């Protein structure tokens, strides 16, 4: 476990910023205590100072996961968000997509969101903007990338993809052994 380098921090923040914009500040600077990002086995964890001090005494080989995993660095040093970060993305998300109850299951099985399943979408969502996907009951289901801007969404045919799937809470079941 170690702190992130400058380049790594930049990569993480750039990816987070696609979903929550400048709200990253609220993650970095929290009134309820000191929280920090730490790298462990190429994965980025978000944890409190208290937890960090506890985890510091655990040998590296024995440590499975300190805190909340935000994602991992690929071998080519790109950062990928994982669904475990959803708890921190959802409250701060700037652009949201709500899916209809009928297509919730399809999304949770790892499929893209089609126009037919689109319930609501935040106004002024640009194309390729990172969005957080909610059910109509405002339960965060995952996140993805808007394939069409809000304006385009109104015109496209019902079978067109409007949100590219990136992660969903179904992964807790599907990828149970690789999620940490």
């Amino acid at each position: 476990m170690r702190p992130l380098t400058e380049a790594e921090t930049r990569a993480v923040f750039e990816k987070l910023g696609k979903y929550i914009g400048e709200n990253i500040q609220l993650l970095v600077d929290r009134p309820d205590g000191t929280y920090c990002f730490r790298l462990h086995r190429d994965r980025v964890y978000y944890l409190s100072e208290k937890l960090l001090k506890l985890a510091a005494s655990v040998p590296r080989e024995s440590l499975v996961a300190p805190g909340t995993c935000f994602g991992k660095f690929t071998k080519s040093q790109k950062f990928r968000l994982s669904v475990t970060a959803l708890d921190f993305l959802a409250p701060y998300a700037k652009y949201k997509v709500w899916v209809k109850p009928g297509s919730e299951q399809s999304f949770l099985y790892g499929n893209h969101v089609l126009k037919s399943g689109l319930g609501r979408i935040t106004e002024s969502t640009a194309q390729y903007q990172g969005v957080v996907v909610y059910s109509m009951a405002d339960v965060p289901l995952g996140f993805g990338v808007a394939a069409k801007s809000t304006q385009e969404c109104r015109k496209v045919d019902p079978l067109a993809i409007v949100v590219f799937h990136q992660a969903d809470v179904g992964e807790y079941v599907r990828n149970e052994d690789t999620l940490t």
Partner: protein
Amino acid sequence: MAAVRVEAVLAAAEEQEAEKRRSITVEKELELEYDLGNLLAVDRNPPPAAALRGAGPRREALLRALARDNTQLLVSRLWELPAERAGGAGGPLVAQLPEPTFRLPREKPAPKPRPPTRWEQFARLKGIRRKKKTSLVWDEQAKEWRRRWGYRRAGGDPSRAWLAEVPAGADPEEDQFARLRREKRERVARNELNRLRNLARAHRAGSAVPAAPLHPTGHQDRDELRRVARVARVSTASLGRFQPRLPKEPAEPPSRSGGKKRRFQPLLGNLAAERSRQLELLRDMGSKKPVLDITRAVNKQLRQEEAEAAAANKGKKQSKRGKRGRRQQRPGRSGKKSGARRQPQQQKPAGGGRRKKA
């Protein structure tokens, strides 16, 4: 009775003969491809796949038989070559092999290209191309084609000329022949020095860590000295840990290879500082201002200056102060411009002397 016996004997003899022949006649569906120069035969016939499958004594025997048959074919081809007795009638029989046709792959890896010399680097930077010149030129006086350089060159060797002009402004007492000889000697020496430097540079580029000490080139450049000093510094029992530091040396002990060691912030360091660093980074990213890359900016500025200097130089290529003019264009020196012009003796005594000679 007797006739039958004779026939039987003949048949037996024939069989024996056939048995003897069987070992040297090999039947193949496809003819083998031979390259007798390399003593090589290539068998394109597919091997009996079913029999070769799996390990075991049977497969081994089959492979042995196949190899024997093919060798037999090759050897019988060798016997068809023209042969002669070496060293008289009683000597061994020697066959004359034809030229090899099969190109064997080379044993060693292909040689690496020689690293470019200093001049080649410079020429590439400036886009200077080599002009092809014929080696023979027409000599008007001799009325024949002669070499451009070297022995019996066109126009005669200037060092062997019987007459040398005294340049305007030169000392009339000075021996012009001696001057020409001296200048030639200097040119040769400088060329040799440059050659050695190029060799040393190529040698250095090949190995990151110089195992050997300095090259006995007479002149060591700064980089080389620094590298050797660094190696010497860490070559103690404690890997340089207790070596006294020089005044301007960094506190961090240098690594042997000269590379920068990857260092991370401490796990439980100053968390407040970490947070403020991250907030700073966020502000940076939010402002969308392009980050100033100092190295890139400096390079850009240098290139621009160089281009300007080259453009200015092109205009007055014929004028004598081409090099000096370029030098004075540097921003740091512009203030000295007038002073340098007024007192050339003080500023550049060597340059002034050379100018007089030329």
